[in-house]
């Protein structure tokens, strides 16, 4: 009889805890700073929240009704991996009409489960271990962790309030190395509300070209601009083939919970992303695809009304913060104001925590969004005018008391 030890060529690793089963890449990811703050807010009552990163509008009824009808008529199957052809066609038409970028629905558009999936697919498709991924910050919280999962190296590029949080060519140039591969752009920006104009993009496009970078442009807030119309990075001369344009229905059409996004780009890049997409999620949910189609076909006017409402609130909030004595650059896009709280002498986290505990207003401390976020507070104005007015009153009182305490 053979003894057990003799059957085993080597001693198995002794795992001390469940965590030892986890991949080192996953273990290396820090939990989101927003999550910690969420737990804190959830313990309290009568909080006015400026911490929400989604529209306060419910999805327009005609869009919801389209999904109900899809269910009633038995639309419960898989769709083509890339998404229903008529939806891809409508997305192509819409992008051409609104942002003057042309994509062939047959092989340049991929419907995804939210813009988030599109970002994940793009990063997984492009990154080899050791590649450097350039990320202007402060920015949406998912880019760095997903980059890290692929073995890529996230490289933050700090942006500043004095530049209205625009990406400056000299800052981009400064971080370029032979390993630089991908640039992730998110304008209009969550959390700063910063935007980029055609002139702002020109020198960036030049650097991208000179260094042969590929760009993931997260334009989920494209519809929400208040000064000049959004300029897609993909619409810049020579940039279409080296850009994956990521967008979706969440912000423009108030459809966050439907998880409807899309990616557009060069057929070879989209084909690579489609490969991962078909093996991981197969396709986006069919009833949500029908709702998205309805939004594109009949929802543009409603969208304009929502944008106008955000604009009105934006003015109210910026003026409010300035009257309170907090520096606040004028955000030109998205639905966030990003005032500076440096004058109070508190860190972002201290300010946010005390604001919650002493004035019952929730907002997200800027430091969770990476470089350049410390000293700021992300305040979403996607809430009613009544709520905003009350929140500003409370913040004003809180800042006043802070200053009296010296």
């Amino acid at each position, binding site marked *: 009889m053979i003894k057990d030890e003799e059957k085993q060529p080597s001693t198995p690793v002794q795992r001390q805890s469940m965590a030892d089963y986890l991949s080192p890449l996953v273990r290396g990811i820090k939990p989101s700073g927003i999550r910690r703050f*969420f737990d804190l*807010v959830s313990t309290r009552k009568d909080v006015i929240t400026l911490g929400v*990163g989604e529209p306060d509008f*419910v999805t327009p009824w005609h869009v919801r009704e389209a999904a109900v009808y899809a269910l009633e008529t038995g639309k419960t199957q898989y769709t083509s991996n890339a998404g229903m052809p008529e939806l891809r066609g409508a997305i192509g038409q819409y992008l051409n009409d609104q942002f003057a970028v042309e994509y062939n629905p047959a092989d340049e558009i991929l419907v995804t489960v939210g813009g988030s999936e599109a970002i994940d697919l793009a990063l997984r498709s492009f990154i080899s271990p050791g590649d450097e991924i350039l990320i202007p910050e402060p920015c*949406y919280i998912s880019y760095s962790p997903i980059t890290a999962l692929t073995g890529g190296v996230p490289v933050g590029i700090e942006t500043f309030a004095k530049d209205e949080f625009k990406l400056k060519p000299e800052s981009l140039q400064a971080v370029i190395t032979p390993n630089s591969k991908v640039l992730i752009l998110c304008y209009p920006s*969550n959390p700063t509300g910063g935007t980029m104009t055609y002139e702002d993009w020109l020198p960036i496009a030049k650097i991208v070209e000179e260094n042969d970078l590929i760009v993931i442009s997260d334009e989920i807030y494209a519809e929400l601009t208040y000064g000049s119309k959004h300029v897609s990075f993909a619409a810049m001369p020579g940039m279409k083939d080296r850009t994956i344009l990521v967008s979706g229905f969440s912000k423009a059409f108030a459809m966050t919970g439907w998880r409807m996004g899309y990616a557009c780009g060069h057929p070879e890049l989209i084909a690579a992303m489609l490969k991962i997409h078909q093996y991981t999620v197969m396709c986006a949910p069919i009833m949500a695809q029908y709702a998205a189609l309805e939004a594109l076909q009949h929802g543009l006017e409603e969208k304009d009304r929502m944008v106008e409402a955000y604009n009105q609130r934006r003015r109210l909030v910026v003026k409010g913060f300035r009257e309170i004595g907090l520096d606040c650059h004028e955000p030109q896009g998205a639905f966030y104001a990003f005032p500076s709280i440096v004058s109070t002498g508190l860190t972002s986290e201290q300010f946010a925590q005390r604001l919650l505990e002493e004035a019952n207003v*929730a907002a997200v401390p800027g430091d969770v969004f990476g470089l350049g976020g410390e000293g700021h507070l992300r305040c979403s104005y996607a809430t009613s005018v009544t709520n905003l007015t009350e929140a500003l009153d409370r913040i004003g009182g809180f800042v006043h008391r802070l200053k009296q305490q010296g």
Partner: protein
Amino acid sequence: MTELQLKVLELLKEDARRDAELIATMLAVPTEEVKQAIAALENDHIIVKYATVVNWSKIDDQKVTALIEVQITPERGRGFEGIAERIYLYPEVKSVYLMSGAYDLLVEVEGKNLKEVASFVSNKLSPIDAVLSTKTFFILKKYKQDGIIFEEHEGDHRLMVSP
């Protein structure tokens, strides 16, 4: 009607308590201009009144409202105007519309109870010479009025904090 007046109207329609300063901030125009726009709208009776939308069913179960279809003979030279006025001057009449189609006036009447409305129809409305016929429909429940939903079920279900 200027573009500013139209925007002011839209904001006041949502909430009549908004003051000129708040509206001016929301529209990025000087407060003085908003004040002038409101004054002009009031002057021209475009803004007729700042009233409150009340859900009476919450406090008074007896109160009833009826919609009455009224057929009338128009008067030579005055059309429907004179008869309409004779009807809308009654305080129990809440609204009167001239309609196209099978009848002429749609009259909304409110009363303390069913009997009061019935008595209005038989003693005041029907006896008017020009009135040919009436059809009374009692309202059982109001769900929505002037774009305002009375019992809103779609609250804010968002997470308090999200990225």
